[in-house]
């Protein structure tokens, strides 16, 4: 029976050898290089007419993958770096595209699966007139721009992995990627129709660390006028609406107060008889001019804006500028129609309004006004002017 024991021994040896090879095989496999997507990093992105939606797009490893699509009418990217890692026969190769100067793009589309940035929460199929993002890192799979200007471009192809760490994938995309294709389309439609938040858990929060939004607006303001001002109305939209009420309520105060001393002296006057009644007449009469003069004052406040401008021969100082803007906001009129009755003033207001819009970056390269809510425009102008010194001359014809 020697052959039986030899057979068992041989079987066991072969099994052990096979298992050893299998276990070794696993450790021998090199770690697979993550070449999916190209990483786009930017210090700051300022864009207008931004819409976010969910699409299906091709990647290095997949034919159809749900992605977040950003579409900008125009955008300026500061500190842009694009890195693509490929796994060549001789090891990893990195293609890096870096721009030391600003990158200006028109009609840009970017499809991404992962993104991190400091800025407002983005909702599906909702157009944001102006959007600022800071410290942007995204894993993109497709980027298109109708027109692009890249200043100080350096395109480099080097050995090794030069890419930065990829940000975490968006939860909404992770959830969608688990769905079968037919259900995916329905879910995407649902998200789009409901304008659901895409880059944060709920609509109010951002992916930024706490206090991120406040930090974004301030440093942006320091950099360039065109870029930063569009962010202001996002943080304090109510202030310009409340302020215009002040001049209406305050003028009433001096009317009410003078009445107090008049009513009180009447008490001792009523107690005496006839001789006291006559003196009352002159007391009551003076009240009328008080009321009539105050109504005139209110009218003067409204009228004087145009009159003041006329008196100043078209030179607009800070206080007059604010009064004109308040007037326009109150009447819900464009700035150039505040003094409609006076043609020369209207022309001056028109050129002043154009210069203000230019300084706010609301006029494009072709000289057309970028479409926006006129009240929002006026609020921006007001914010801009209120930062100047008291008495400063804002406009001269």
């Amino acid at each position, binding site marked *: 029976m020697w052959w039986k024991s030899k057979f068992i021994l041989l079987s066991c040896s072969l099994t052990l050898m096979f298992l050893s090879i299998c276990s070794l095989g696993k450790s021998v496999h090199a770690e697979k290089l993550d*070449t999916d997507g190209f990483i786009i990093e930017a210090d700051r992105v300022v864009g207008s007419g931004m819409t976010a939606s969910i699409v299906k797009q091709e990647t290095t490893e997949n034919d159809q993958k749900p992605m977040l699509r950003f579409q900008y009418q125009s955008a300026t990217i500061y500190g842009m770096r694009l890195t693509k890692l490929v*796994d060549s*026969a001789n090891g990893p190769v990195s293609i890096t595209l870096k721009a030391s100067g600003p990158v200006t793009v028109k009609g840009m589309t970017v499809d991404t699966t992962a993104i991190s940035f400091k800025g407002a929460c983005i909702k599906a199929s909702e157009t944001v007139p102006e959007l600022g993002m800071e410290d942007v890192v995204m894993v993109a799979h497709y*980027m298109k721009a109708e027109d692009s200007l*890249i200043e100080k*471009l350096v*395109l480099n*192809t080097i050995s090794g992995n030069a890419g930065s760490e990829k940000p975490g994938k968006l939860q909404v995309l992770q959830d969608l990627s688990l769905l079968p294709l037919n259900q995916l389309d329905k879910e995407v439609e649902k998200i789009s129709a409901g304008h659901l938040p895409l880059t944060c858990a709920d609509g109010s929060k951002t992916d930024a660390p706490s206090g991120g939004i406040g930090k974004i607006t301030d440093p942006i303001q320091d950099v360039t006028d065109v870029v930063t001002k569009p962010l202001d109305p996002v943080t304090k939209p109510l202030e310009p609406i409340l302020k215009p009420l002040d001049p209406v309520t305050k003028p009433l105060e001096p009317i009410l107060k003078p009445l107090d001393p008049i009513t009180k002296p009447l008490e001792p006057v009523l107690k005496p008889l006839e001789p006291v009644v006559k003196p009352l007449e002159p007391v009551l009469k003076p009240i009328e001019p008080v009321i009539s003069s105050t109504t005139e004052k209110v009218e003067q406040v409204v009228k004087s804006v145009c009159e003041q401008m006329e008196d100043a021969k078209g030179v607009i100082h800070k206080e007059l500028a604010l009064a004109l803007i308040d007037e326009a906001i109150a009447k819900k009129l464009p700035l150039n129609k505040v003094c409609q009755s006076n043609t020369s003033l209207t022309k001056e207001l028109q050129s002043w309004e154009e210069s203000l819009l230019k300084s706010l970056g609301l006029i494009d390269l072709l000289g057309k006004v970028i479409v926006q809510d006129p009240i929002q425009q006026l609020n921006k102008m007001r914010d801009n002017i209120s930062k100047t010194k008291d008495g400063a001359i804002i406009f001269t014809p």
Partner: protein
Amino acid sequence: MESPVQLVEGTTSKKVFWSALGAGILTLALLLVSFGVSGVAYAVPIAGVGDFYVEFDKLVGTGYTFYPKMGETGTSDSAPQGTNLIENLTIDNLQLYKDFKVGGEWIRVKIAASKPVQISGLQHDADLIEADAKFQNLVVQEKHSDDWQKQFKQTSSTIVLEHAKLKTHYLFQKTINMNGMKLTVEKINK
């Protein structure tokens, strides 16, 4: 006894010699005449000299494509590079140069064109491009492919590069019209 060396006297066929020389001169002359008349050279590669630099003030081209590749350089048989294909282009103030170290001194061999250079079917392999760039219809995308060279591609309908410097390893043009060409060899301090 030493065997005497036998000298064998050969003869040159005068007919063969003169016909070969005449054919060579005629071909060269035809080439120079055709280049001189049209100013166009066909299928011109510049390779095998290691990396060299291309500089120019402005390039305006159409039909641009970029993709990665591995190729030969002055120091390696296989190094990462990017292939730039441009269908048609015009270059202002083109300069190509390479620096050589000869006996402890640096010498620069430079080809420059004083007039705009027109090229069609350009293939340009480089590992470094520095320029101010403008693109129309720029698309950067990845493709699902097993071939790593096809996984990433950058294309644009037009490309404009200004104040450019390109570290080049290979250059090929289907046709090149290079008027005002000048070749110089100069000593440089490096």
